[in-house]
């Protein structure tokens, strides 16, 4: 009886120790392989971490968002949110954004800025993909632009890069910058574009002219419009509230591959 009890105590103790250290090891491994999202805090963050880790293990650089034929392009392509109303943006509109420049900085060896014409001289990629809004509606459109990975190669991304942050022009009153960030798995994905064209013509203003992000393996709100700055970083902890984007600060999950 006594022996049994002692044995039970020992096995229970060992099992508990194994469980606790197992969790600690799991967390360390998850962190090392970038499987923990910036919004991992709290009980809801635990579910989010599970979803993000599971999908990151399942998806790879090679899993491509579905592409469609030209005949499947939607006639209706709604938008959410209004274009920027600040002077810095408005003065660019009459000239067709010829004076606009995209700043690319952060953890890169050659911080640079590009005009629209320069971006258009890079290899052109186009895709006809499905974009779903977290509200529930969706549309299919053709997006034309340069692969983000190409631009990151041009500026020389440093090895410690973990996130790419996208900053648009302020577009609300009171001023609000709807910045977002994505991990390197999506940033280096071949379908992730800096898009300057849509359905065969220049990107319309409601859809984010002159340049927007297209990250077709995630929901619409990750596809930041009206870009003027792209920043490579190893941590988003010190940006805003540290949740990786304005939508996360507003209560939406940072990872939107759902």
């Amino acid at each position, binding site marked *: 009886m006594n022996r049994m009890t002692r044995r039970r105590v020992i096995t229970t103790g060992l099992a508990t120790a194994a469980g606790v250290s197992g969790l600690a090891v799991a967390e360390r491994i998850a962190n090392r392989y970038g499987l923990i999202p910036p919004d991992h805090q709290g009980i809801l963050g635990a579910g989010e971490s599970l979803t993000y880790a599971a999908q990151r293990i399942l998806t790879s650089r090679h899993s491509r968002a*579905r592409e469609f034929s030209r005949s499947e392009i939607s006639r209706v392509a709604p938008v959410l949110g209004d274009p920027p109303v600040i002077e810095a943006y408005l003065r660019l509109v009459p000239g067709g954004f010829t004076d606009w420049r995209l700043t690319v900085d952060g953890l890169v060896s050659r911080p640079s800025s590009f005009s629209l014409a320069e971006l258009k001289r890079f290899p052109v990629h186009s895709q006809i993909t499905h974009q779903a809004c977290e509200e529930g*509606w969706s549309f299919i459109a053709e997006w034309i632009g340069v692969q983000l990975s190409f631009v990151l190669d041009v500026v020389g991304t440093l090895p410690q890069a973990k996130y790419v942050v996208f900053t648009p022009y302020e577009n609300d009153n009171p001023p609000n910058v709807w910045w977002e960030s994505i991990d390197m798995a999506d940033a280096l994905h071949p379908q992730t574009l800096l898009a300057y064209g849509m359905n065969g013509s220049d990107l319309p203003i409601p859809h984010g002219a002159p340049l927007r992000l297209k990250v077709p393996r995630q929901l619409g709100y990750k596809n930041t419009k009206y870009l003027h700055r792209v920043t490579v970083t190893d941590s988003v902890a010190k940006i805003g509230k540290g949740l990786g984007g304005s939508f996360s600060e507003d209560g939406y999950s940072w990872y939107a*591959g759902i």
Partner: protein
Amino acid sequence: MAEPAQLSGPSVQKFEVLDSSRHSLLVRVTHWIYTLSFFGLVLSGLAIILAHPRLYWGETGAVGAPSLIDLPVPFVRDIPIRGPGRYVHYLSAWICVTTGLIYVLAGTFTQHFRRNLLPKRKHFSWHSISQVVLDHLRFKKPTEEGARSYNVLQRLSYLTVVFVLLPLMIWTGLAMSPAIVSVFPFVVTVFGGQQSARTIHFFAALSLVLFLLVHLVMVCLAGFTLRTGAMIIGSSAVRRDRP
């Protein structure tokens, strides 16, 4: 699996243990964890669908494009319930799926489905089916003897929930994930598109809510305290001083 309920002492003298294995420990634990996560899923699902209460068929759909059904509720876009709702939805989904997997694996292993839920040949006799249907139409309270095992309507509805509706919920849920379908495109193409999956997700959820309502009405008719007690402590304790 089930531990016999030890009912003794003056406070429970009026009770008698009729069937100590009314619900196994596995069924009881998974039932209540599932109940909690189901409420999480339904409430957060409501918060999500209210942002755009229109359903479509095919790949795409939006205001300005033809809809399949316009739900008779307003568009709720400015109340900040959707973001937190989405977090709750996925956390609850993880709990629900994990619990469901444990339940299905253990239920298969312990022959719970074969013994208690799979209808037997005798259930399909005309007499048996008409009796059950008539009893339900008359809101007849089941006898203690009858309440010990599931009748054919219960068996079929439980099996439909476990093996048809819940798997369909999971499948259509995954079909709406652009990341998941980038790996497994057939998950969404079998439904004919992302919006079709969303529509089926909604109607399967509605069927589950209807099942829950019928389930609750039946529990109340059969004796709420008794049946709920059985799902908590596992046994059907019956008061002797009541017929």
